[in-house]
């Protein structure tokens, strides 16, 4: 009877085992890299009904974020502007632009402008803008340099780890709201004293304003 398997087959079980290890490693690396908001959500930049540019309006014209997102200090939800907010200027500036047809129509008929939502926390998470903004957390910490974006894209992952990183060490982000230069809507401000200056200021503010971000589950999952 001739041999069914060549001699090299003796090494096969070991080789298969090794290969499974490599395959497992690749699968782990893939899941680690891809199965997270950092890949699935960061960079989301949907096509909007109006080619509105934050780079032009907030960056070049220097309009404050609160001119349009006017409830961000008062409520948990940062509203998108009404069509009238756009018409304040666009009844005279570029009043006939075809790019603004949707806005004009909305202003006249009251129909909604179908903006596409970009940032989203799951519905089992409680998030509130006003508590963050009125304590001195800037938009830039969670949204990136919106004032340099032609089209808004999600910049930060907004995962639970991202929220907790700051909740455990808010002094690295807190701004002193008594100083107009540090207004939360100034996205380019960084502490002139560098990281050390920022941390010192943050610690003082935490003591003065009794800032205590929740790190227990019920703070965000209520």
């Amino acid at each position, binding site marked *: 009877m001739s041999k069914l398997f060549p001699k090299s087959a003796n090494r096969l079980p070991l080789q298969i085992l090794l290969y499974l290890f490599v395959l497992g490693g690749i699968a782990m690396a893939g899941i680690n890299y891809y199965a997270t908001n950092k*890949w699935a959500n960061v960079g989301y930049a949907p096509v909007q009904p109006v080619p509105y540019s934050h780079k032009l309006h907030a960056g070049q014209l220097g309009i404050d974020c609160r001119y349009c997102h006017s409830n961000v200090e008062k409520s948990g939800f940062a*509203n998108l502007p009404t069509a009238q907010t756009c018409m304040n*200027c666009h009844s005279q500036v570029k009043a006939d632009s075809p790019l603004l047809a949707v806005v004009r129509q909305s202003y006249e008929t009251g129909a909604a402008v179908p903006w596409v939502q970009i940032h989203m926390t799951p519905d089992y998470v409680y998030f509130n803008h006003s508590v963050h903004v009125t304590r001195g957390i800037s938009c830039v910490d969670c949204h990136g340099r919106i004032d340099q974006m032609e089209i808004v894209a999600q910049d930060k992952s907004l995962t639970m780890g991202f929220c907790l990183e700051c909740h455990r060490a808010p002094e690295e982000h807190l701004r002193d709201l008594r100083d107009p230069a540090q207004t939360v809507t100034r996205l380019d401000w960084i502490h002139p004293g560098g990281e050390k200056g920022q941390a010192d200021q943050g610690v003082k503010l935490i003591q003065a304003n009794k800032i205590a971000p929740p790190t227990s589950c019920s703070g965000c999952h209520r």
Partner: protein
Amino acid sequence: MRHVYFATFLIVVLAVSALGFRGDRFKHPPLELFPDMDHQAHLKPQAESAFFTDGRADRPLPPNVVAASLPLDAEDGLFRGKATDNSWLKTIPVAVDAKLLARGQDRYGIYCAPCHGALGDGNGITKQYGMSTTPSYLDERRLGLTAGEIFNVITNGSTQNKNMLPYADKLSPEDRWAVVAYVRALQRAQRGSPADVPAANRKELGL
């Protein structure tokens, strides 16, 4: 075995080129393998709803309703800028102090300065782009406006040529009075004279 590793390598390259890297820009809605309870059935602000015919979750006010936060009394000066005899208030009906002015300066910078300019001279950034009708607060007409009239411009928009739209949705009545106080301060500042500077501070300014 070498072939198996090579095939695996090819598959990995293929997968990475299909899935891309972290931070890449994309237009399609984000991938959700397990929706968990991310999208629950309650209505959210400014969101869509299939239940109502206009498709909105936010419901518009029915005609003729008045928000409970507004006074029904038409003569309330604080909310309408009018005195009991229906004439415009000449003075600001809240206490004007440093705190109110600071609030007014802050709100003015956000909501008025893009057009009226930081000095109230009408030369805000939008003038260069075609908002040519924005007036200065320092011409005869605007200096003659009463506090109640300025309040009314913020609440209901300008009455002259209707070129300025209302800001009532962005500024609460208290904030509107703060802005009125700051507009008054701007008007005063532009017409100051050396005599207005307290004697102790004149030297600093070289007067």
